[in-house]
């Protein structure tokens, strides 16, 4: 199969969706500019016209609300927020309106909108250009939240999100944009809510989100060399998340490490850890360990960034810690 980068896979999904369905359109800041979107939207405006690929003013609140209104009335919009941080200006339309609409009106009206938000961390850009806010949105009933970690999933999850019929937050991470992987040519869906086992193993379940899934693969290589047999799960959807698959994996290994490059308190990792502890406590041989960002806004200085962001090494230590702290074998 041919290989594409993560960013190219996203672009291909957009292009094919725009071609397939006249109800699909794209609106947001920087959709015709490589600064924000990388190659992930390259030249779509040229191919499909500026009326369907709308590069908007700096008006997050209005553009998101507009997309929601269009969705309610029969379109299939994708709203683009080039930094997740900017999307916070659109909290009312997302949380109060889109998330509630179907429930409020007993399903008589729905909001088939995709809200795409890019996590952009590092590069000495600081606290307001780096936030990974999946937990905030996963908290809200009525929203679905997906976080692809591979080019294959980047394409398939976008297709599934557009066809889902509900408001779906599609969160992609710039640190993954150059990642290469196999991507089928045609349109296909990766089901929302289904995690995937990237490597099966016996000793410990390592569950990761988005960019951390890619770091986790590196960690698994290092751990394998040390004779540790890791089962790696890429969760892919954080709302809803794949409880069955996670529970059965932890049921087998008895140990769980969760890696999510967002703040630790009240995060996605906390939610999964609480569920596992609450539902299958008897299966656990060791305390669950979370590998997350410390509870601080992102610093700018390169030295502090180095200390702040976590990767494969932190995952390796966490796995080792879980093995050491096991009470039962």
């Amino acid at each position, binding site marked *: 199969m041919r290989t594409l980068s993560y960013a190219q896979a996203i672009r291909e999904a957009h292009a094919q969706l725009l071609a397939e369905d006249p109800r699909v359109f794209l609106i947001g*800041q*920087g959709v*015709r*500019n490589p*600064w*924000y979107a990388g190659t992930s939207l390259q030249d779509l405006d040229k191919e499909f016209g500026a009326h369907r690929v709308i*590069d908007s*003013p*700096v*008006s*997050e*609140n*209005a553009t998101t609300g507009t997309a929601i209104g269009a969705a309610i009335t029969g379109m299939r919009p994708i709203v683009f927020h080039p930094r997740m*941080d*900017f999307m916070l*200006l659109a909290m009312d339309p997302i949380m109060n309106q889109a998330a509630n609409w179907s429930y409020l009106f007993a399903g008589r009206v729905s909001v088939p909108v995709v809200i795409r938000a890019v996590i952009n961390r590092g*590069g*000495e*850009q*600081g*606290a*307001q*250009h780096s936030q990974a806010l999946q937990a905030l949105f996963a908290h809200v009933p009525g929203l679905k939240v997906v976080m692809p970690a591979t080019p294959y999933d980047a394409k398939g999850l976008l297709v599934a999100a557009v066809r889902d019929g509900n408001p779906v937050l599609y969160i992609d991470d710039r640190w993954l944009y150059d990642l290469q992987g196999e991507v089928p040519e045609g349109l296909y869906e990766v089901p929302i809510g289904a995690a995937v086992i990237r490597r099966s193993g016996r000793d410990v379940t390592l569950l990761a989100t988005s960019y951390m899934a890619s770091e986790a693969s590196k960690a698994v290589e290092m751990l394998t060399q040390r004779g540790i047999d890791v089962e790696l799960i890429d969760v892919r959807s954080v709302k809803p998340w794949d409880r069955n698959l996670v529970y059965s994996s932890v049921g087998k290994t008895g140990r769980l490490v969760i890696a999510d490059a967002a703040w630790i308190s009240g995060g996605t990792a906390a939610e999964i850890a609480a569920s596992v502890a609450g539902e299958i406590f008897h299966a656990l041989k060791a305390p669950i360990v979370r590998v997350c960002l*410390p*509870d*601080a*806004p992102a*610093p*700018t*200085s*390169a*030295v*502090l960034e*180095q*200390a*702040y962001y976590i990767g494969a090494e932190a995952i390796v230590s966490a796995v080792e810690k879980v093995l050491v702290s096991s009470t039962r074998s």
Partner: protein
Amino acid sequence: MNLQDTHVTPLSHDQLMSLLWAMQRIRVAEERIGELVATREVRTPCHLSIGQEAIPVGVCTVLRQDDTVWGGHRSHGHYLAKGGDLRAMMAEIFGKVTGCARGRGGSMHLVDPAQGIFGTVPLVGATIPLAVGAGLSATLRGTDHVAVAFFGDGATDEGHFHESLNLAALYRLPVLFVCENNLYSTHLTLKDRRVKDNIVESAALHGLPGVVVDGNDVTAVYQAAQQAVDRARAGEGPTLLECRTYRWRGHVGPAADLEVGTDRRRELDDWQRRDPIAHCRGLLNAQGLSSEVFERLETEIRREIDEAVSFARQSPAPDESELLQYVYVRGEG
């Protein structure tokens, strides 16, 4: 209302000299920052305001130290014009512990409370309502402080611009809204974003005076700001100044972005002929400013900038142990 109808005193030679000095200082500092970015010695994103110096300088010259200014991602000029510490700014851009935010902020987060700079942040338009809050706080505390919100034309696309104008007008708050209309918001021109080139009309809609000012004429900015500040201090409420200008460099970094979005070569040439610094020099030349005096001023400025850059270079990076400091303050903030 047209503020320019009312009486203003012409500027003295000394006043013009200090305006020239302040503008040239911002220019040289930013050119240097641009070089440091080009050589990758500086990695944090730096948004340069070269070409726009007359606006912060014209406005801040009429402010007192205890007046506050609020800016965004392109705020080196606001910071320096208001009296922010140059060395601390350079060190911040270098991510050093001697920076104004101890290296946690970079170019987009400048702060110097002693000079009335309580923080600039990159989220577009974010500080406009904060300036309104500073105006409200001045009123409630019974002081005659004035708050100035600096923002770009792009920020007027955001809802909080409109909400803030209304609040400030409604409560007659001592706020100066200064829109630096440089015709661009990242890669998009004003035409891509508005049906009409009419930002100033927002003022009339919300019931406050609005004035269009030649943002490349420092005396025009100064005089408009003077009247608006006088009004604010007298309890007569806010003013919107739409200062027409142009940014010579691109959205971020030293490049000119000639090919991004639109082709702006011709436009840039036209605007460079309207250099605010050359304009001010022209006024002074007519009063007999010699080129030796200008060169001396330039040399002094370069020396100060060189010194600030070496200070920044030599300063230590923050220690990793600082990572979790300042997430909260201790006791009374």
